[in-house]
């Protein structure tokens, strides 16, 4: 791709939508002034399909990285984005994606300050892949970590599970199930900050993306060497998602979420935390879904609707590929 052509691409599309003082200088690198304790994350988005109910690869690549940065108890500030675009990709689609990125960045209160674009021969990538890396300032004295869950803690989540995974699956397979199934893709950093600034003690925050709530909780149970017990009755699941999963033989606990986070905290802070979450449109279905116990260590146990128990195992293998 010639110098002039990429220059035009940058100015026409990227600057048009993502403009800010730092990006507009178009230097080789972005000059940033930040406090010394940083949260830094990167992710590459290869989702298929690139446009789906409730979002697109643009909103996803901003939300995903913003959320990951925030999970340490940090305020996300700046992102980079690198595009790898297949030759022949429609400019109009690229414009839609970048516009969506800008909109999501604005909601999250972050700036895209540097980027890169490569156009590659047809077949080298599938339409478009985007990498976003991001930096945030850690505001907690002790960053949140998966190692800090303790017996007696409770597990809460800011809303319904399985929405994104099911939306992608049905869009990919071309299924029209008559239910309202939409990805929950959204930046939740502002909601996380509200919690972190008002709840004196939080131990873990993690977003249950690939592999769903089940896999994420298994990872935390192993890292913290505890048992996490879930209450099947308490899991917030949209009725459309439940019915869709029943028909397709999928389990919402293993489906990806892109606008949700699990929060593990001492029992005394559950009530105020849920109040804070439910006041926000991204937390109105927040729920207490489980608790941390001592044994069996490293395992997740489901207390079922009928009063029984069973293990929720880690997802083995690729449940659904290219989900984010």
């Amino acid at each position, binding site marked *: 791709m010639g110098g002039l052509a990429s220059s035009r691409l940058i100015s026409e599309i990227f600057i048009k939508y993502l403009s800010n003082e730092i990006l507009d200088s178009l230097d080789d690198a972005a000059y940033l002034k930040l406090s010394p304790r940083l949260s830094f994350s990167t992710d590459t988005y290869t989702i298929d399909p690139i446009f789906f109910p409730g979002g697109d690869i643009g909103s996803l690549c901003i939300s995903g990285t913003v959320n990951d940065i925030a999970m340490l108890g940090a305020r996300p500030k700046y992102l980079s984005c690198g595009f790898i675009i297949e030759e022949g990709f429609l400019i109009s689609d690229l414009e839609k994606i970048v516009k969506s990125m800008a909109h999501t960045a604005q909601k999250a209160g972050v700036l895209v300050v540097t980027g890169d674009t490569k156009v590659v021969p047809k077949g080298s990538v599938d339409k478009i892949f985007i990498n976003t890396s991001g930096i945030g300032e850690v505001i907690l004295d002790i960053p949140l970590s998966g190692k800090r869950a303790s017996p007696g803690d409770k597990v809460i989540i800011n809303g319904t599970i399985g929405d994104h995974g099911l939306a992608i699956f049905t869009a990919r397979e071309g299924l029209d199930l008559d239910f309202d199934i939409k990805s929950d893709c959204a930046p939740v950093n502002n909601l996380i900050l509200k919690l972190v600034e008002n709840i004196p003690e939080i131990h873990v925050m993690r977003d249950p993306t690939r592999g769903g709530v089940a896999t994420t909780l298994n990872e935390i149970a192993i890292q913290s060497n505890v048992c996490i017990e879930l209450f099947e009755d308490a899991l917030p699941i949209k009725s459309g998602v439940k019915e869709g999963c029943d028909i397709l033989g999928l389990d919402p606990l293993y489906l990806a979420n892109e606008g949700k986070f699990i929060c593990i905290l001492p029992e005394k802070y559950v009530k105020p935390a849920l109040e804070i979450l439910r006041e926000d449109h991204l937390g109105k279905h927040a729920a207490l879904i489980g608790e941390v116990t001592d044994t069996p260590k490293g395992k997740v146990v489901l207390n079922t*609707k009928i*009063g029984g128990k*069973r293990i929720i*195992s880690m997802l083995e293998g690729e449940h659904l590929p290219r989900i984010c």
Partner: protein
Amino acid sequence: MDHNKLQHKIKETFDRIQERLKGPFRFMEVCGTHTVSIFRSGLKSLFPHLLEHISGPGCPVCVTHPRDIAMGMELAENPDVIFAIFGDMMRVPDSNGITLKDLRAKGANIVVCYSPLDSLKLALKNIDKEIVFWGIGFETTVPTVGATITEAKKMGIKNFSVLSHHKIIPPVLKFLVEYGEVEINGFLLPGHVSTIIGISPYEFLAKDHKIPSVIAGFDPIDIVYALDMLTSMYICNSPKILNCYERAVKPKGNKKAQRVIKEVFKVSDAYWRGIGKIEASGLEIRDTYKEFDAKKRFGLTPKDVGEPKGCRCGEVLQGKISPKDCPLFGKKCTPISPVGPCMVSTEGSCAAYYKYGV
């Protein structure tokens, strides 16, 4: 029923069962859907200690004999064939540990179908290829396969056939009660199979062997109710075949489905993993539809092959051992690297024990 009432009802019934039994009562279910329901709902964790649950040969993927797997692999490697299969078969290892997934990675044309009719559509779209549908299943799926074959004949389709490794349930039950090494005090009979065959094929269990049996639905409360009936008959020494799934199972079964099966298939001997040959326990395609019989079309002959090394699926399937008794369980054999089909299939016992703990 709300969840509190449900929990109360289940506890009450299990307390009654425990009270009623004077010693261990061992029941076997022979349906993968029952296996999954018992584990997934947490019902297994609530069983009173005198109630012993064993899973039998109710998973059609799991009971497919290695010699039949080898036959499927042979067809899959044929460059003129598009091999249409149900998803679970993709990862079942053959005697050498090779799967259809491995063959597909090497270029074999293998397609996952949700129904046999999908494979007919493939035949219409790919007239330069031979489409073979791998018929693995019990009486529940056979009528659809039969209907697909009659449809293919009606449409004059010349490039479609079925590799029939279908099996029927009553003969394996007979084998287990006559030759099996495990004492079975009662059967939970398969709901879906029974919708097709009705009640009478099971009568021999009560009449000849005095084993009470109940046809049950798949909700936890259906299973609990069935166990209540089973243990009650056992204690009163009045074994019968009861139908507790009346909303789906008629006493004479589904006559239309039975007609389709009879039209296209005839009963034949079949090989079951871990058991070997059971007479008159399988279905093969009749001569009237011989052009749709992949075995004849491709001149396939079974090869004498054994189980994958160290695999004890055959014993698990007969209830001789629990999955946890297998030395490979959870170590060498896991869902991500299975040695045998019981760990691969979504309805396999080993997969259920591994995934749901207990």
